[in-house]
């Protein structure tokens, strides 16, 4: 290999290495700057659907961050949102339309619609979420302590 040839090779290698290193550094930065499509881990508010699709005397479980939340529309106009895991042994609670109460089928724990533990083994109330209806859209948010 001639002197000139070696010199060229080193310069080419510098150019190639330089460009690939720049790519290796700027690719992650570019990806980083594009915001991820996924919801944030601990949201403070959550849209849970239209009020028209949520008839009276019905309930559904929605996901709030990593916690399940039970959304209830009682026989009247009121909408309640509470953590859905029973405070006794973490079963998912359900809405009892007849009694207008929340019950846990695992050990017959009973809560009222504000989450207060009424009877059975649950030691603590369910945590309540604030519910607002904005443009027919139900929005729940964490209550301020």
């Amino acid at each position, binding site marked *: 290999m001639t002197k000139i040839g070696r010199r060229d090779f080193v310069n080419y290698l510098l150019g190639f290495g330089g460009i690939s290193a720049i790519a290796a550094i700027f690719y992650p930065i570019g990806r980083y700057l*594009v915001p991820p499509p996924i919801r944030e881990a601990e949201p403070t508010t959550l849209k849970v659907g239209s009020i028209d699709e949520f008839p009276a005397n019905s309930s559904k479980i929605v996901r709030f961050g990593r916690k399940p939340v039970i959304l209830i529309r009682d026989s009247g106009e009121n909408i309640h949102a509470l953590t859905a895991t029973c405070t006794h042994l973490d079963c998912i609670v359900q809405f009892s339309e007849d009694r207008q109460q929340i019950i846990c089928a695992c050990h017959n724990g009973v809560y009222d619609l504000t989450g207060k533990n009424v009877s059975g083994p649950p030691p603590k109330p369910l945590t309540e979420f604030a519910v607002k209806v904005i443009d027919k859209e139900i929005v729940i948010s964490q209550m301020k302590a």
Partner: protein
Amino acid sequence: MSNFFDSRVARWLDDRLDLSPIKNLVEHKKVPIHHHTVWYYMGGVTLFLFLVQVFSGILLLMYYRPGENSAYESMQFITSKVHFGWLIRNIHAWGANIMVLFAFIHMFSVFFTKAFKRPRELTWATGFILLVLAMGFGFSGYLLPWNELAFFATKVGTDIAGVVPIIGEKLKIVLRGGDDVTGATLSRFFGIHVAILPALTTVLLGLHLLFVQRQGMSEPEFFEELPEAKKHYIPFFPDFVLRDALLWLVVLIIILSLAVFFPWELGLKADPLASAPMGIRPEWYFMFMFQSLKFLPPHILFFEGETLGVLFFAVAGIFWMLIPFVKLQNGSINESKFFTYFGLATLAFMLGMTILGYLV
């Protein structure tokens, strides 16, 4: 590259801005070659790491949200949801530690090669202040993820500020933004970390680099005493710069590897009502102070032990910063030897206390 100054762009710029200082630097700056040349790289690496911190820090700012109810959550979001968020966060965390490490190495190498002596007193002093600022960056940044360990470490750290005589209690309240470590402290530390310290650092770093360029590389005594013919130099540009670049790349690979294989845990969210978890430690570069304060008896004469300790470190820091101005009148001891022994004693104390801190 030297033919850059013959290009049209350069001439256009030169016409307006006078590029001769830069041209001078590029063409004439040279670096002495001797068996202590390796220490010349330490400052450059620290500068590189500082730049890594600036860029990764700016990127983190894109998603980080300070606040009691959002800081930890946004960190969780960054590390688990954002593409490469984990990488940026870990580079920032590892880069911080390695930067402080190199800053210490830089400082001690300058000390032992006596490079701080006339005419470089001001370079030394600005460098020392930069190290203190770097430690401030570390202390304030540690709290920002708002996790349990950071919360309690900050509590302990700001408590220490409280023992300073007379102004201590006020200082603590100012640092914390209240009586206790709360969301207010977090806002404050955030402001310190991303605004106050960067501003101060920019100014001091500018001065520090300006001084270095004005004075050129320091030559150790033994090198100065060599006959001219035996003094070897290499041009700063491009030879020394290439060597710098090589080391920076190696350091970059090390940080990347640490970030990938030893990620920092986020831990649990800070809970002001929880009891302090076991093993609360300051970051390693505070350990020697933390440990010495622990060894002090509660009372020394009429003073509280801790107060005296904090005062001692403040005075020692100022003394260390002003050490280039120390002039020994005593003829019996060689000045250069005095500095060596003093430096060794300081280093031994710091290392010893740090090691004890991790053993006890």
